[in-house]
């Protein structure tokens, strides 16, 4: 049967505030267990929450970036359940009145087409702590450092039709929150987490099939694999006459499979009710406008500008804006070298290949943007050829002296002095009388051979255009 996949994602993004959502404790990652938990985070009797205004502002920033309605009156609720790493016995979240309402973002499909994906809502909530079941001599430890860290839960509409679209959506979300500077969004560290609701239905059918929720997907690659695996599992089930059970499934990346966690039928009744320790958050129009005024240029806008102002191709522009760090790197390079196309080729070509080879992020690039910019500037002003530039690029990895010093000290500077070039040309003519005769006889292509010989003789430093011109003149 021809099946259609339907996917919706729930993405938790940790907001990169200095302090927690309702207390002044630091949110720094990786501190000693329980060193970042104050009396509120520990749920000491009598303590009360105070909303972190920065987190609120970040949530509004996100809402505006995805063209969403901003909840002018958003309400916090208590979500009740018992777990040792949930100190209050309830999580403060938002149910009926989230800070961010309906919005959308566009993704680029494999065939280059754009598709709009709906965002149902995004709400603020506090993170739980962590239970540690190892290294405690058979007992469980609790680390409350993370408890109370602000999260933005972003819920998509079931608009995604395959795992590739889901990854594209997730990457776009990642790019947006990074552009907005509201989250580190590092999946491996858990500052961006993704749950996927997956169902399948016979193509053409209107109503959705029974969905399962896949949890614990902690990389972009695993999102694709986990969804594909789950789709296959559901297909096998249905084609064998079975039924999909609505349940939560855990993705195991080692085994590349999902397995049942708990059935939704016996799921907790969270008994949500409005958090009486916090008043509803009333947001003024002026606040929203102030946040809007501070919005940075977002990926889609930047891509359009790269195409119209810098003349880049849609593909190049798309690659360069896909991460804020890369776009920033690229723009620095352009500013220094003054040639967007050359810069685009180098950043998305040689630099990307290098980063891939060394398994590094662009923020840790071993060649800083200012050095790459300086290098490309020397290509543009013809100080060096593109070929020489590639060897200088390699040298930059080991030698951190300025680009010009390296070109100078290694004598890589292109030879443009006509006297020097004349000598080269004379030497080549003298050494290749046969080929010179062939050129005279009208065999144009042999001229290229002679140019090559001159370049070789100059160790690549001669300006090939000048060599060519002078050879023609002399042989004529």
């Amino acid at each position, binding site marked *: 049967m021809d099946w259609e996949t339907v996917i919706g994602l729930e993405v938790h993004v940790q907001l990169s505030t200095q302090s927690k959502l309702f207390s002044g404790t630091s949110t720094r990652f990786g501190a000693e267990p329980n060193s970042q938990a104050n*009396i509120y985070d*520990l*749920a*000491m*009797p*009598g*303590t*009360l*929450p*105070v*909303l972190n205004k920065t987190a609120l502002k970040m949530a509004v920033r996100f809402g505006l970036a995805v063209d969403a309605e901003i909840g002018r009156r958003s309400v916090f609720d*208590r979500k*009740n359940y*018992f777990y*040792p790493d949930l*100190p*209050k*016995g*309830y999580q403060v979240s938002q149910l009926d009145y989230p800070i961010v309402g309906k919005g959308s973002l566009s993704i680029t499909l494999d065939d280059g087409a754009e598709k709009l994906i709906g965002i149902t809502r995004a709400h603020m909530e506090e993170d739980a702590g962590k239970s540690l079941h190892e290294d405690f001599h058979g007992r*469980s430890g*609790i680390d409350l450092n993370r408890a109370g860290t602000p999260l933005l839960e972003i819920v998509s509409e079931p608009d995604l039709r395959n795992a590739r679209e889901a990854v594209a959506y997730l990457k776009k979300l990642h790019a947006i929150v990074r552009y907005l500077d509201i989250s580190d969004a590092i999946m491996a560290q858990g500052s961006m987490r993704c749950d996927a609701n997956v169902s399948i239905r016979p193509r053409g059918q209107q109503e959705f099939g029974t969905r399962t929720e896949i949890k614990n997907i902690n990389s972009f690659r695993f999102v694709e694999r986990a969804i594909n695996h789950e789709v296959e599992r559901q297909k096998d089930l249905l084609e064998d006459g079975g039924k999909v059970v609505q349940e939560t499934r855990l993705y195991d990346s080692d085994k590349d499979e999902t397995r049942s966690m708990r059935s939704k039928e016996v799921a907790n*009744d969270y*008994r*949500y*009710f409005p958090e*009486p*320790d*916090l*008043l509803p958050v009333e947001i003024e129009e002026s606040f929203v406008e102030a946040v809007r005024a501070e919005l940075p240029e977002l990926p889609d806008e930047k891509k359009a500008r790269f195409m119209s102002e810098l003349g880049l191709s849609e593909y190049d522009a798309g690659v360069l804006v896909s991460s804020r760090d890369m776009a920033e790197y690229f723009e620095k390079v352009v500013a220094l070298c003054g040639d967007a196309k050359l810069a685009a080729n180098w950043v998305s070509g040689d630099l990307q290949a290098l980063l891939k080879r060394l398994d590094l992020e662009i923020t840790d690039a071993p060649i800083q943007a200012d050095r790459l910019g300086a290098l490309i500037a020397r290509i543009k002003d013809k100080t060096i050829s593109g070929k020489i530039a590639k060897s200088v690029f390699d040298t930059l990895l080991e030698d951190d002296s300025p680009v010009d010093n390296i070109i100078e000290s290694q004598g890589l500077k292109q030879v443009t002095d006509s006297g020097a070039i004349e000598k080269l040309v004379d030497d080549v003519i003298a050494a290749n009388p046969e080929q010179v005769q062939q050129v005279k006889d009208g065999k144009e292509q042999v001229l290229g051979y002679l140019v090559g010989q001159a370049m070789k003789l100059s160790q690549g430093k001669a300006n090939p255009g000048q060599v060519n011109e002078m050879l023609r003149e002399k042989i004529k």
Partner: protein
Amino acid sequence: MIEKTVAELSAALRARKISSVELTQTFLDRIARFNESLNAFITVCEESALVEAEAADAARVSGDDRPLLGIPLAHKDIFCSRGVLTSCGSKMLHNFIAPYDARVVELFKEAGTVMLGKTNMDEFAMGSSNETSHYGPVRNPWDNRRVPGGSSGGSAAAVAADLCAMATGTDTGGSIRQPAAFCGITGFKPSYGRVSRWGMIAFASSLDQAGPLCKSAEDAALMMNVMAGLDDKDSTSIDRPVPDYSAHLGDSLKGLKIGIPRQHFAEGLSADVEQSIRDGLKQFESLGARIMDIDLPNNHLSVSAYYVVAPAEASANLSRYDGVRYGYRCDNPVDLEDMYKRSRSEGFGDEVKRRILVGTYALSAGYYDAYYRKAQKIRRLIKQDFSRAFQDVDVIIGPTSPHKAFELGAKSDPVAMYLEDIYTIAVNLAGLPAISIPAGLANSLPVGMHIVGQDFDEARVLNVAHQFQLATNWHRHKPSLQSGEA
């Protein structure tokens, strides 16, 4: 000296007729003598009290003249006090030494008062008789066989028995005013949001409010001058200017319009209480006030709505007592679930468990609309009733409680107990300020008069109460104590 009001003690301290150390020692001696029979205190801080008193005396010598400097007080054991047991009347917190001060405690420290100790209370403030305390019931100083009211029963009894000059309490449905009425003292619940709830152990967050228990409205004003104000640690505290509550005590009541709710003088009110209140109203008339009947048509729904909203909030507020981080943990739990179940079954008393169950039920899927949402709707109606009434009147007066103090064990049916708060609960649901002041004695037991004001009109309520106390002597009546017998 011991029976004097805070205002009088303040004057005596200023005039150096007595030192804070002498005063503190006198109260400590009285506590030693009478607390065994009254059970008003859970913790007595003898040493630290004397240290604080010495500091107050030293400050006085160096020119410090603040009104409450050196005045000995007691805090309800619901307020966190750094380094001191803060039990909330529960076995669950029998070992909880608070690591920080509640804002109210901090403010009284900053005012130079002396903390004598922490007073007994119904467990987690859930009760109207102080019989649900893990530390045993408090006895009414007027009659040892009777309850002091609750939940701030320890504070009320301590003030009535002159074991302290003043005390703090909290009021969720009447927990300051009803014990004040039963013990013949003055008890004031400010508007919701007027006093910080930081460090005050939560029962029902949207209703809880701290306030004074003391010997006169004048003293309540002095205490409010310390307690009231915005606290950025409590998001529900209100940013409104705090007046000098003592400044308007002397205002004349000529032309004051007093509303008498028909619903508060109906079935269920005992005759002797009604008589005292009617006599009091005549007193107000002679002071130039005008009395008129008003309606609070939804008042009869207040107890039902309250017993949905308060337990619902409590069911979540008390989830943190799980035996994981502090407080009571059962012995030898076999696993997590066992630890939760037994720690909570063993650590909480029956009334607390009852309310957690009721609250959990009211919030459950399928019942939320029928209970919680409906109760919130009733809450709005009750608020509207008051707003409408206050278009015509300045204050509303009635009895604080339908009865005088009842005997221990007399209200074994929970609903009968809940109905004791029928006049006070609506005020919490509406968030209004209200005071209970002594308005008579019936068969040698005090009767409390309830004066309700408009939102944040605390000064008016205190003014009306003070004028009554200038004209009458009910607040000067004292129980005769017998020491050492229960």
